[in-house]
């Protein structure tokens, strides 16, 4: 393969992960464990970093081992590989950032069952060479992260009047009645629905204007 086509392939993987085949609003995978942490931006950032690391590394590992893994036990092997990376994150957080580990609670461990990790290793890592698998995993996770960050920023600003713990000028003043509902569970559902609606409509509109799909 010439370097030129190789570059195009990577470009395509990146665009797919970030936009066309975005894990949240197109594939609708992996919203389970991470909706709960979007009430604070800082928690979300840590969670997203953990997720990017897990998806990229496990995709890479699965891809490296793909020729040695028997077909019928592959789910088990994938799960164990994912669990290995998640345990690294979990123990790392416990050792160096105990407060954060406490905040995130069980949700770090739940990355194991986050469907997006399994989905990417199964859909791409299992059948493709390592470099592509790494890019695919990393950019799917980034596509996932940017949607979550939007949700987290809106939720924290409207619900608590802060951003990363700092007071925002208008939202923390007495003129803004804090929307407590935004930091409660229903707020997460509503925000995710809104964001999905917005991006999906944008995709439909872009598609109908004859932009190449």
């Amino acid at each position: 393969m010439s370097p030129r086509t190789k570059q195009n392939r990577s470009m395509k993987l990146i665009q797919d992960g970030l936009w066309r085949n975005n894990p949240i609003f197109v594939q609708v995978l992996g919203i389970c464990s991470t909706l709960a942490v979007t009430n604070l931006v800082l928690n979300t950032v840590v969670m997203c970093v953990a997720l990017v690391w897990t998806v990229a590394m496990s995709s890479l590992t699965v891809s490296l081992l793909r020729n040695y893994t028997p077909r019928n036990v592959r789910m088990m092997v994938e799960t164990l590989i994912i669990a290995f990376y998640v345990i690294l994150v979990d123990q790392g957080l416990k050792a160096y950032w105990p407060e954060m580990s406490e905040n995130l609670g069980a949700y770090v461990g739940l990355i194991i069952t986050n469907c997006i990790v399994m989905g990417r290793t199964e859909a791409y890592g299992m059948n493709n060479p390592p470099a592509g698998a790494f890019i695919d995993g990393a950019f799917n996770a980034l596509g996932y992260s940017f949607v979550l960050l939007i949700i987290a920023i809106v939720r924290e600003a409207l619900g608590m009047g802060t951003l990363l713990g700092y007071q925002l000028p208008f939202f923390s003043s007495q003129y803004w009645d804090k929307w407590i509902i935004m930091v409660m569970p229903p707020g997460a559902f509503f925000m995710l629905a809104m964001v999905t609606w917005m991006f999906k409509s944008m995709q439909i509109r872009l598609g109908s204007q004859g932009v190449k799909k």
Partner: protein
Amino acid sequence: MEGIAAQSWQAFVVCISAVFTQNVLLSYFLGMCSFLAVSRQVKAAMGLGAAVTFVMVSTCLLNWIIYYHVLVPMGLEYFRLIIFIIVIAAFVQFVEMVIERYSPVLYQTLGIFLPLITVNCAILGAGLFMLIRQYSFIVTIGYSLGSGLGWWLAILAMAGIRQKLAVSRIPAGLQGPGIALLIAGMMALGFIGFTGVLAG
């Protein structure tokens, strides 16, 4: 050690609160993926709900025993993620084989959902929460039963609503998961109304 009666009462309270005020799905977002995928038909939702409840109670109890009687004495607590997921996967596989062998009828209704359950975060989530909150064995029975029933209730209600949605006009961008999330949000609001139930 507290008395059995006190623990049973606590188990009951935890069970009710896991169904209503702290529903696994609507306030902890666990099991969202299969919730969105399978909640199109009431019948399928019924089957999946039953399967999840059964697997949740069994694996939570298994995991409780393994954690406190094997991992803690050996000082291997950090291994719990791997052990739990193996226990869940193995249990699901085992149940699938048993059902297939002895009850083809049950297999027809539950069988197709069993593989989905291994990656259902609600099961692993319930196991992790039970450790974080340090429930005793008896309380864990109540907690896992309540969590399962709560998940069942939520997916069943959702499926009922979504069947009606099939005939309504929804904006193109909101179709599918979008509208389901909006409804889930409203259901979560409704469930917040139960908050006062256990105040006393």
